[in-house]
């Protein structure tokens, strides 16, 4: 009865939601997912028993976490600056590269062979976690902010180029065709008909990437890439959870503030 009501509504309106996949495909999918789930739970020996038996083990750590040493967060202010500097450099440079690479990785702006290759290159590049990039660059340029910057640039290219390439795939093809019809070459078409169309998304991706870089500063520093994460690494080694807690609390506030700030700037720019 409910089904007929929905159907009649659907007939009247073309906006009807997509037709569900045939049942066999759905059940096959559910079956596979269930098997994988059972296997994974078994493989990592999933259990919640420690919540009952060992809950008290965590008390001491948590107690320190809930008693943050605020003075410490201020004492490491230089490292905060380094984190912001790393993020600014890496996101500006990374996003500039990403725009060029994205233009090479879309069928709208690149010949078939090139965009296939670039899509693969970007997929490979995105597959390495940020930690792997830091560890790699630390061995090349030794520990410190330079390794962090290089790692984040690679990380940012992966994120921003993929998102931007997808926006380029979705641009209105009309202006591109018009540029083609006036005899523009591929670079001119990209500059005149494509870049203006993707600029708003590209700008918001860049802000997003900057925010990600602040968030990633923990990982970067733990891997040896400098900044506030390095402080965390040292404090972890000496189990100074009250210090860590203060730093992380500040980080959360900073990320939150950046989120609001970038939202306002984006709204004004676009």
């Amino acid at each position: 009865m409910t089904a007929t009501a929905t159907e009649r509504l659907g007939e009247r309106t073309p906006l009807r939601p997509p037709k569900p996949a045939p049942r066999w495909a759905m059940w096959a999918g559910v079956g596979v997912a269930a098997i994988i789930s059972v296997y994974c739970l078994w493989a990592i020996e999933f259990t919640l028993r420690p919540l009952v038996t060992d809950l008290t083990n965590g008390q001491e750590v948590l107690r320190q976490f809930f008693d943050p040493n605020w003075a410490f967060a201020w004492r490491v202010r230089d490292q905060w600056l380094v984190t912001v500097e790393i993020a600014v450099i890496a996101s500006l440079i990374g996003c500039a590269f990403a725009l060029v690479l994205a233009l090479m990785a879309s069928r709208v702006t690149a010949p078939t062979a090139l965009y296939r290759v670039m899509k693969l290159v970007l997929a490979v590049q995105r597959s390495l976690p940020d930690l792997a990039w830091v560890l790699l660059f630390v061995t090349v340029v030794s520990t410190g902010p330079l390794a962090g910057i290089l790692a984040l640039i690679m990380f940012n290219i992966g994120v921003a180029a993929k998102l931007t390439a997808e926006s380029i795939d979705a641009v209105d093809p009309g202006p591109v065709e018009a540029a083609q019809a006036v005899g523009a070459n591929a670079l001119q078409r990209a500059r005149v008909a494509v870049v203006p169309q993707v600029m708003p998304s590209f700008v918001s991706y860049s802000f997003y990437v900057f925010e990600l870089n602040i968030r990633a500063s923990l990982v970067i520093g733990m891997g040896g890439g400098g900044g506030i994460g390095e402080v965390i690494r040292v404090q972890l080694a000496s189990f100074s959870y009250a210090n860590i807690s203060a730093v992380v609390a500040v980080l959360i506030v900073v990320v939150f503030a950046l989120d609001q700030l970038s939202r306002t700037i984006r709204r004004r720019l676009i």
Partner: protein
Amino acid sequence: MSEVTTQRPHPPSKLPKTLGMLATLAVLLVCIWAVNAPWSRLLDAPGIFGDYLRLMSEGVLANPTADPHQGYWVSALQYMLESLQMAWVGTMIGAACSFPVAFLAARTISPAPVVAVTRMILNVIRAVPELIIAVAIMMPIFGFGPLAGALALGVGSIGTLGKLSSEAIEAVDPRPVEAVSSTGGNKLQVIWWGVVPQALPEILAFWLYRFEINIRAGAILGLLGAGGIGSILSQLFQRRVWDRIGVTLIVIIVVTVIVDQISARVRHRIIAGPKGSLTPGREPMAEMG
């Protein structure tokens, strides 16, 4: 037609744009100067990197059936498999917990106070790095190993999945929902028959997307002793065993790219239906961080 030039409108000022560009450039330069990094090392970097790359490729190209390289491949695959298991279980936990929560956080379903409180909790969870969840809560209780890692990823996933799912729920077409309520269904029936079928494809796609992200996010947890590929990666880099690093990185790349491809196909299929006639749903990646 030279007299027409007088009718030309005045060009708008370029000043704001120029100032914006100059300011950005200035910020960049100040940062480059202030960060005090050994920039000159960049000159040697390509050479060093090339050397390492050569050493790594020696490991990758060596006969994989002979020792010690066979062992490298096997252990890299085992660690990577553990990463996938952690990510999957983490996503399961995130999905299971965020699904009901998403309805509480949807303005179209729940009363305003409930929405406000739920959203605030989700925002707090989203803000805390998984690293900290692992160190502060999971590892003291569950010890070292992939279980603690999976739980940390799971809690971290609740935040983003809850937020994105609640947005998907708010965006459903209200007409089928009205149709169900007009037949006199109670609230749960309305949600089950009117809302869930519409929002589920998108929510499922978010789960898969989060799985892809959890594979990468798990790496740092491994560094702390929570299992997976991260736990071996830092040791290898410290010991600079390049042939083994090469093998490990290739395993990470190949496995991740394959899993990403499969996940992307399934997501597309779920959202677009069997014929793939619809345009794929918006990529939620920009909010997944």
